């Protein structure tokens, strides 16, 4: 076999067949004992993403504990504290790839008190994987996780009905869970809902099709994830380019260069496009879209590029480039659904926080708590006066300077913000503008 080094210079798209696909992010959620870690372990194991020394270590530990089979959950239960308690306490990220795609798994714990982690994991996910124990059916936690996934705008939900081996692979059990879940989900905005009967422990319908469930005509989990069409989930219509950093080389070789660096939040940008810069409110034209490998003829999410404009406009970090006839809402009043993430303090009316929205920091005051949402029953408590750790609420904020926002349900980038406690610097809330997962 002859091997040659690739030519130096501007990189073409990587041609490696080993990394040819795109990227899919999925979040898993489930209770402590419904087999989530085992399912992930099974995905990694059956897709041959587990390394020999990792497997050896798992087999050894399982043997030491007197287990009958290799405990695949040991592959993912990372920190020592967790191994000792046998629970997962934080979001852990896992990676595996098949010839079709690279997968990033945000593995989140399912306990009641860890809604925070589920929100974190779901915030960037293309797919939410919800585990239901076939013996227990749809429980409170299944509802909560589905609610959170839809609230966070996760476009695809896959329900794995697990432990089918313990219900004799009974189609009726699966169908009953499917019916109950579908009924519940119809009250939420779930764009795409799929059900798969699996046994993570023995591997049915995880990577390979189960022979025990001939009645199931869908795909095993991995093939489903490989084929899921996620490109159309991205917002390619509304051009939003939050300016992240202004590149102005103080060097003799590029003295006149002035470029606006950032990540395309949504839409497709092209040189020659008329654009509007906010908050300046001035129009100009895109002169060039630069990358270190040279100019490109278009930029779309999530590309990181540097935009040069035809006219000199005073633009800095936190400003927004959009189209003149398609601009975000410019406002200092924000209605949002928030998840409170701080254990030491609650959210109360009148309190001030730092707010980060796209690349812009400002200060915000809580004007009003409209209601608290019970994430289990979706019941609204309009008398709520404070919002505590892992609680969700609809609130109104007044911000010290205008933000350039879209509704979260149409734009997961420009519809999102975080609140930061100004005394502790902790991130205390995740906010979704105008968002409610309830259908009206």
């Amino acid at each position, binding site marked *: 076999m002859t*091997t040659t*080094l*690739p030519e*130096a210079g501007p990189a073409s*798209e*990587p*041609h*490696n067949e*080993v*990394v040819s696909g*795109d*990227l899919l992010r999925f979040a898993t959620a489930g209770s402590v004992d419904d087999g989530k870690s085992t399912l992930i372990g099974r995905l990694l194991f059956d897709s041959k993403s587990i*390394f*020999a*020394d*990792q497997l050896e*270590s798992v087999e050894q530990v399982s043997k030491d504990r007197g287990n009958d089979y290799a405990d695949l959950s040991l592959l*993912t239960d990372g*920190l020592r*504290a967790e191994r000792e308690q046998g629970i997962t*306490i*934080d979001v*852990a*990220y*896992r*990676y595996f*790839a098949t010839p079709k*795609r*690279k997968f990033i798994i945000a593995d989140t714990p399912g306990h009641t008190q860890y809604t*925070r*982690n589920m929100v974190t994991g779901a*915030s*960037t996910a293309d797919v939410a994987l919800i585990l239901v124990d076939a013996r227990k059916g749809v429980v409170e936690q299944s509802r909560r996780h589905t609610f959170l996934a839809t609230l966070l705008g996760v476009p695809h939900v896959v329900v794995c009905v697990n432990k089918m081996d313990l219900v004799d692979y009974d189609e009726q059990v699966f169908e009953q869970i499917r019916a109950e879940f579908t009924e519940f989900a119809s009250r939420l905005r779930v764009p795409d809902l799929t059900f798969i009967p699996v046994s993570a422990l023995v591997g049915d319908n995880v990577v390979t099709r189960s022979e025990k469930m001939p009645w199931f005509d869908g795909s095993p989990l991995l093939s489903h994830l490989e084929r899921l069409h996620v*490109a159309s989930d991205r917002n390619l219509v509304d051009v939003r380019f939050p300016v*992240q950093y202004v*590149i102005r*080389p103080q*060097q003799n*070789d590029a003295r006149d*260069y002035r470029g606006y*660096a*950032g*990540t395309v939040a949504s839409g497709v940008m092209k040189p020659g496009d008329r654009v509007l810069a906010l908050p300046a409110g001035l129009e100009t034209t895109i002169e060039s879209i*630069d*990358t*270190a490998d040279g100019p490109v003829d*278009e930029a*779309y999410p*999530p590309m*990181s590029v540097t935009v040069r404009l035809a006219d000199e406009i005073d633009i800095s970090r936190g400003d927004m480039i959009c189209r003149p006839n398609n601009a975000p809402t410019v406002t200092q009043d924000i209605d949002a659904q928030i998840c409170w993430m701080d254990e030491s303090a609650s959210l109360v009316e009148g309190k001030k926080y730092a707010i*980060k*929205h796209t*690349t812009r920091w400002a200060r915000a005051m809580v004007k009003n708590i409209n209601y608290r949402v019970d994430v289990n029953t979706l019941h609204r408590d309009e008398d709520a006066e404070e919002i505590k750790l892992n609680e969700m609420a609809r609130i109104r904020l007044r911000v010290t300077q205008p933000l350039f926002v879209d509704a979260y349900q149409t734009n997961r*980038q420009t519809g*999102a913000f*975080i609140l*930061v406690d100004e005394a502790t*610097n902790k*991130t205390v809330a*995740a906010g979704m503008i105008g968002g409610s997962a309830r259908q009206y």
Partner: protein
Amino acid sequence: MKSHVLSQLRSLEAESIHIMREVVAEMQRPCLLFSGGKDSIVMLHLAVKAFAPARVPFPIMHVDTGLNFQTVLDCRDRWVERTGVQLVVASVQEGIDRGLVQEEPNGSRNRIQTPVLLEAAEKHGFDALFGGGRRDEEKARAKERVFSFRDDFGQWDPKNQRPEIWNLYNGRVHQGESIRVFPLSNWTELDIWAYIEAENIDLPDLYLAKEREVVERGGMLYEVNDFTPLKDGETAQVLSTRYRTVGDANLTACVESTASTLRDVVEEVAAVRLTERGATRGDDKVSEAAMEDRKKEGYF
């Protein structure tokens, strides 16, 4: 009509560039920790791309254990020369001489480089340190944030990390506190190699296979050289080997391989069934919780 789907490598690249720009925009004094290994080189390459045509707007710091492979130092110097980036060297030997740290009995300077690193970071006032850590490397890293908050002792508390939602990173710190930033968090070893090949990135030649005189110790292959001389009763053999990781020269083992080009390495890594640390780093073998302990002390 174009598909408007970014490939996995370009998605990872875009994410890393976003993270680096965010840090430069928000932090007072960032610095990139540069070991001369492939991950830190990829990180520097990404930094060059993130700020082009301007130069990389922060220095790189090499924590010099004094146990370097010469080709790694040569490669470092080529990068400094080519990119014009400012290089800060923090010397572990000097730290030993001054009594800041003590040599460990097993000859590993891995643990004692932490105080040297923390002291240098404090001296230079760095409030954000870029590290090349990846979450796929080790179980304790799987829960590491991209922006990892450290207290004023440089310590990591796994229970006191900030939630990271969307790509809205929060780098706010008080005086004396800092963050570690891991722009390669979502890359795997295979991604790194595929990217190195696609971008034709300059690496130390240790990573490519050639015939080396090696000795086997505890199931690992060490090259016979000044750092790891032959001991009494041992016999050397000549094998085609390469290095999968580059750490201290006295502790880093090589593996049998015939992968003498980047393409070969990508194919080898795609097929390999042993995690890189497990295969070549004597210092990580000590215990399952070894990494978790070191991270708590401020190690990367």
